[in-house]
């Protein structure tokens, strides 16, 4: 009976690993495709980390915009990362996770700006929180929130050089 229980645990782990691997890969590919498509779509909304707007822009009205995303790793990635912990080095599986989250946060910030008719965001900053685990203090899956925020402005078209306007 004891043996059966142990066996069951191993099978369950393998199933979760397989589901995590295939579903995780599929979802990641789909997310990347959607990120690339939307990045193309919102390319015209410029985001800078500079504290002051570019010279050619005479900003009109300003507003804080923000984009938030909470993302978690999948079962397979966590397993691989656990192995990785022994030998150190790059956590390649988590790198893509952060990359996705940050790009998504920037996109959402741009979408927020676009929705309100702004065309330029300056002083973009990132802030992130780890919200893994639960309130009872149990160690859970790595799960974190990334927020991108900045000041959106509506530049006067007249101040743009002619070839930049369309």
């Amino acid at each position: 009976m004891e043996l059966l229980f142990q066996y069951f645990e191993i099978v369950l782990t393998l199933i979760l690993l397989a589901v995590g691997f295939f579903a995780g890969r599929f979802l990641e590919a789909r997310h990347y495709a959607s990120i690339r498509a939307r990045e193309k779509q919102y390319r015209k909304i410029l985001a800078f980390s500079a504290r002051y707007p570019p010279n050619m822009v005479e900003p009109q009205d300003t507003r804080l915009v923000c984009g938030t995303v909470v993302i978690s790793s999948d079962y397979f990635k966590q397993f691989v990362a656990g192995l990785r912990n022994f030998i150190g080095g790059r956590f390649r599986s988590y790198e893509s996770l952060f990359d996705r989250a940050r790009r998504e946060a920037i996109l959402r910030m741009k979408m927020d700006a676009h929705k309100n008719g702004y065309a330029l965001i300056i002083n973009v900053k990132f802030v992130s929180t780890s919200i893994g685990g639960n309130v009872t203090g149990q160690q859970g899956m790595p799960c974190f929130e990334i927020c991108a925020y900045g000041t959106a402005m509506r530049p006067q078209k007249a101040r743009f050089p002619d070839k930049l306007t369309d």
Partner: protein
Amino acid sequence: MSSILVSNIEVVPGKRVKSHLGLVQGSTVRSKHAGKDILAGLKNIVGGELTAYTELMQEAREEATERMIEQARSIGANGVLNVRYATTAVTQGAAEILAYGTAVVLE
């Protein structure tokens, strides 16, 4: 939406800062609840975005900002400049979200 101008740059283009009223802040501590936690636990197997938590954090951030604006209004400011967000994990599963900035009176 409030008439208070909120931005994270130090100057407001086209307007002059008449007086500086010092730091204002707003914060909120949020925790995820069990129901969402269970669903998120399932979602954790395949990874990706946890939409319920995204909404939670978005809401918390808005609330922190709103509280900061409220404080700014109570001391007679009409703008909050150089706004920053900061977060702290209180315990696992709960986070404090803080928004702070400089309250100013703009002309």
